[in-house]
């Protein structure tokens, strides 16, 4: 029968980590773009849009990522939308990420003084021009640390995609556990791998925050 050496376990986990990283990057980029749209809707001076964006945020912050995944994966196809584990994982993570990022960024936009909106309005700029040229550049600066901090949640969120069969670190871990009967070792390694991915992000978020506080 086949035998997994320590090196087999580690290398398989490391290979699976590629997918964790890739999925995180996709979720973060797509979630960031979607989040930007939700943010725009959330702060635009159009009440129905604001309410819609608020509902979106409430919905995706108020339900488990796992359920979102299940719905995207098993339920959407029933209404004719095909989803592979890849698209389901990417889609659910994007929705999840965008809702949180939109909310984080809204805080940053609101931290930009009202006078900046008024000054740009009095120069005849429209909403999108104000956003693009005046507000976002200022909000961006303060948004960097919490955004980097949130990326840790995205990386960790990818673990849940293992449940729909997406083979990333956690799924690889369960599979290897089952072949090796060494859960302590395998899940320990899995945890360490995530730590290795996330801790640098956490550290840089903290460092960025310190830098921002000094600059103020």
């Amino acid at each position, binding site marked *: *029968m*086949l*035998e*997994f050496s320590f090196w*087999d376990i580690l290398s*398989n986990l490391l*290979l*699976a980590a590629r997918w964790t990283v890739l999925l995180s990057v996709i979720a973060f980029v797509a979630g960031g773009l979607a989040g930007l749209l939700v943010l725009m809707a959330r702060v635009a001076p159009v009440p129905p849009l604001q309410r819609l964006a608020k509902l979106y945020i409430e919905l995706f912050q108020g339900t488990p990522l796992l359920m979102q995944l299940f719905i995207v994966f*098993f339920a959407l*196809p*029933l*209404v*004719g939308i*095909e*989803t*592979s584990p890849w698209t389901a994982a990417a889609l659910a993570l994007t929705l999840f990420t965008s809702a949180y990022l939109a909310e984080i960024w809204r805080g940053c936009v609101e931290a930009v003084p009202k006078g900046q909106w008024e000054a740009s309005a009095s120069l005849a700029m429209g909403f999108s021009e104000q956003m693009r040229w005046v507000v976002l550049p200022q909000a961006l600066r303060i948004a960097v640390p919490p955004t980097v901090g949130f990326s840790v949640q995205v990386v960790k969120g990818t673990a849940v995609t293992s*449940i*729909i*069969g997406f*083979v990333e670190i956690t799924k*690889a871990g*369960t*599979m*290897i*556990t*089952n*072949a090796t*009967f060494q*859960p302590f070792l395998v899940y320990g390694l899995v945890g360490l791998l995530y730590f290795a991915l996330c801790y640098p992000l956490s550290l840089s978020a903290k460092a960025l925050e310190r830098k921002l506080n000094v600059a103020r």
Partner: protein
Amino acid sequence: NGGLMATAHADALERITKDKVLRVAVPQDFPPFGSVGTDMKPVGYDIDTAALLAKEMGAKVELVPVTSANRVPYLTTGKVDLIISSLGKNAEREKVIDFSVAYAPFFNGVFGPDSVKAETVADLDGKTVGVTRGSVEDIELSKLVSDKVNVRRYEDNNGTISAFLSGQVELVATGNVVAAAIMERKPPRLPNLKFLVKNSPCFIGLGKDEGPLLEKVNAILTKAKTDGSLAAIAEKWLHAPLPKDL
């Protein structure tokens, strides 16, 4: 949209022949039917069966690893053409999917280490038994046991087996061959047979109203039974000949 789906469903065989790809849901946590090697690729009885079918259909096989709990939704949501995943037949499932003829033997049983005594269903009272949610064992065991039995239902066989091996459950309900395959790997806790629950051979699952595909699959299986190719798979993975009555 509905029309699109309908055609996709009704003519799975047509699509398979056209694309030359057969998408099959297989287990990766259920030795000897399907488990992973050091390269993380699924191997086992079900995988070989899938390959056999694909070869006969002149298609390339695309293996989709699934769990016991989600394999039926994989089929009903059109993510795969066939389930070859040690799938047992029961009335509830027959409402949503169709079944081929049997392709593998399977005896459900309750297994556990020597230290735990259990000779009949009644002996299970007060004990914890792990089972994979939505599997035939789950459905059969749920029918048999009393409220006093603590049945723990795990998402997939990985969970069930891990729970047994780590001692989180005293006993495990699974297939005899599965228990044998686990024993072969010399685990920390041995799943010895306590008693058998049901003879529940495995069938291939297909979408409803896939008449042409069903006929094709049945034809291939029948041929494989007579020409010995299925028997070879059984020898290889179960270390036993194919039962005559399958």
